[in-house]
Every structure is written in structure tokens, then in C-alpha cells.
């Protein structure tokens, strides 16, 4: 469970998120909102990449401000642009990166890497330079690099924004198959139809927090009349 209590977030003297309180318990949660409404900032709060100026964020009881390292182990994060998330030149090496950081032996790394490469259909590319993968494959690699660490939660910030329809569907299937609770920021409303909960942001505040159909209805109405 992720618990957000009375959180304010500022960049300089600009308040981005104001007095936010949320308890995230559902298995599939969607975050929507217009550009600049604070979605990415919110997502980054969940794994301690940014810390609240007021209030606190607890992940399974661990305070992101007190133990960011433990929180990052629990919360995997997928960025919008896989190019900035893939940090090693070769596919296989990139998957090893996080595992190595966690101190796993070469043999332990190999077992996990083999399994995840097969699962994401990247096996034939294991020795290829990451920059030669297609956009969809890169995003799959980025997701694989997070999941190989077996996080308890997965947060994704617009994982399909740069992808075509076919790859969006691939990623969507990959998300469906995840065992972990997933919190996903997206503009792709179709992705959210079978989610448990959708939260709509508007200028750093919560505009709607409901089932997908109800929340999206409020969101679309507000955006159309704005």
C-alpha cells in the first residue's frame, strides 16, 4: 500500500502539488491530466525521486524521505523515453545493470536475465547494441530492466506516448500480465478501460478519483469545456 498524506510539492516558489492525500491499494491505477498538471511529479513522489516539501509518502510503511533506497527497491519506475533509461550499450548488459547494483553474482544475474529475455521476446537481441532496437523493443527492454528486479510496485510515466499502435498494444499486454500493482500515467485512455481506479489531475489538484468510466467522463467534460 502506498500512502500519501497532506503532500505539498514545490519547485522553487511554484507549488506543483497542493495538499494531496491519497491511499493507493488497487492493482491497476491510471493517472490522467493535461500537460503540466503534475502527473510526472506525482509519479516521482512514489519512489522518492522527488521528495515532498510538506507531508509524507509511505510505501508499505517506509517513508520515501527517510529511506529512499529501500523505497526504490520496492517501487520500479519506467520512464517515458526508454532511450534515457537504458544506460548500458548492450541489451544483456543493461538488464544486468540493476542486478549488479543489488550485488547479485554473475550466475544469479544470468538466470534472471535469461528468464526475462525469453518473457519479453528479446532473446535473439541479447547481444545487440540497445540503440539498434525498435522503439517498442526499447520500451520492452526498459520495462524488463525494471521487472528483472522484482519490485513490489511498478510506476510508469507515459510508457506508450512515443510508440505506434502495435507497440502500444504490446506494452499494454505486458502491463496486463504483471502480477504487481501498477500505477500508470498516460494520455492513452483506452489503456485504462479495465483498470480498477483512475485519478485525474488538473493543475496539481485532483479533479476526479473514481472508476475509469466515471473519472474519465468527468475529466473529458472538464477538458472540453475548459
Amino acid at each position: 500500500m502506498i500512502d500519501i498524506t497532506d503532500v505539498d510539492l514545490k519547485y522553487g516558489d511554484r507549488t506543483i502539488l497542493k495538499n494531496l492525500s491519497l491511499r493507493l491499494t488497487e492493482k491497476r491505477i491510471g493517472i490522467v491530466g493535461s500537460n503540466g498538471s503534475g502527473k510526472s511529479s506525482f509519479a516521482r513522489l512514489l519512489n522518492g525521486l522527488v521528495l515532498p516539501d510538506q507531508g509524507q509518502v509511505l510505501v508499505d510503511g517506509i517513508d520515501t524521505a527517510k529511506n529512499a533506497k529501500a523505497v526504490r527497491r520496492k517501487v520500479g519506475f519506467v520512464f517515458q523515453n526508454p532511450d534515457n533509461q537504458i544506460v548500458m550499450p548492450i541489451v544483456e548488459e543493461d538488464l544486468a545493470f540493476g542486478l549488479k547494483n543489488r550485488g547479485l553474482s554473475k550466475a544469479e544475474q544470468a538466470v534472471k536475465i535469461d528468464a526475462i529475455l525469453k518473457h519479453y521476446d528479446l532473446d535473439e537481441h541479447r547481444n545487440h547494441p540497445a540503440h539498434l532496437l525498435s522503439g517498442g523493443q526499447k520500451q520492452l527492454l526498459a520495462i524488463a530492466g525494471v521487472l528483472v528486479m522484482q519490485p513490489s510496485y511498478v510506476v510508469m510515466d507515459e510508457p506508450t506516448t512515443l510508440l505506434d499502435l502495435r507497440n502500444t498494444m504490446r506494452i499494454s499486454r505486458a502491463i496486463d500480465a504483471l502480477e504487481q500493482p501498477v500505477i500508470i500515467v498516460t494520455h492513452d485512455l483506452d489503456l485504462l478501460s479495465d483498470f480498477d481506479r483512475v485519478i485525474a489531475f488538473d493543475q496539481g489538484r485532483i479533479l476526479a478519483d473514481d472508476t475509469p468510466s466515471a473519472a474519465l467522463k468527468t475529466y473529458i467534460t472538464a477538458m472540453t469545456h475548459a
Partner: protein
Amino acid sequence: MHDLYRPGNSLFHRMHAGHKVLCLVFAGSTIFLVSNLITLIAALVMITFCYRLAGLSLSDAYQQLRPVVVVLLLILIVQGLIHSWTLGFTVIARFAFLLLAAGLLTLTTRVSDMITTIESNLHWLRPIGVNPGKVSLAISLTLRFIPVMRRVTTEVREAQKVRGLERNLPALAIPVITRMLKMSDDISDALDARGYDPH
């Protein structure tokens, strides 16, 4: 440089990266002690044969020399005219051997193994404040982002072209640098998110 490695399972691929580097250093220094042209040619034949052993083609071997063929020919001619043709051939045979040997190393060694070797051989620099883990991360990131940087540059150049701006270095450099700076923020977040912890 980043995609030179050819996956394979030959003797050379399986050899430890550190041992390969040692062999290269040894062969590279020995070759300068040899001045007999016949021996040098034998060494060249042997190293070419090693390419075959590593599952590589003769064309792969030639690719290692191709960028410097003109330079080699110039050296040959200059040496030939000033000193003797035998000396000219001796000099370029040595260079060719070095290039082929170094090429064999890069074609059969993963960058990561090379980096691990560098990392484990830099530990003695720790007392003066060099963190081998950071050095190797820097090398990896550089290799990873060279192609990305190339792509960003192409994108910016194309965006400028369609708006009528032809070759103009400052106009190109500013947006490229801005994007790279933004990108480096994201990359450093990603390193954090993926549990990177320099010790």
C-alpha cells in the same frame, strides 16, 4: 566503436578479456623487436589465420586496415624512397600486424568484459581518489549515448533544414546541448531509480 563486437563462441571469444589484453601488449611489443621481413610476413599470415579461427572473415580483417591503407602506402613510399623498400615493408607490416591484433581483440571481446577488466585493474588508483566503478560507468554511458547523441544531432539538423537554416554550427550546437542537458537529468534520475549506488 560500440557495435564492433561479433558474438561467437570461438577460442578467442572464450578467452578472458584481461588475458587477451596481455597477449595484445606482448605481441605488440615483440613485433617491434622483429626486423626480419619474412618473420613479419609469417606473423601477418598467422594473425589473419587467427581471424578465421575466431569465425571471422578475411573481409573483417581487411576492414581493420581499410581506414589506414592510404597512410600505410604513404609510409611505404616515403620509407622506400628515403631508406629502402625492405625497411618500408617492415614498417608497414608491423603496423598492419598491430591493427589486426587490436581488431581481433575488439571483435571478440564484449565491451562489458573489457570494462570489467579495466575496473578490476584500476583498484590501485583508489587511494588517490579514483573510483573504478565510476570510471567504468562513465565509459559504458559514453558508449551507450554516442549513437543517441548522433541521432539527436540529426534530428535537430533536419528540423533546422526544413525551416530553411543550412549549415550553421552555433545554431546547431545550442539546441543539441540543451537537449543533451535535459537528457542527462533524466539519465541521472534513471540511474537513481535503477539502484545505482557508487561506493
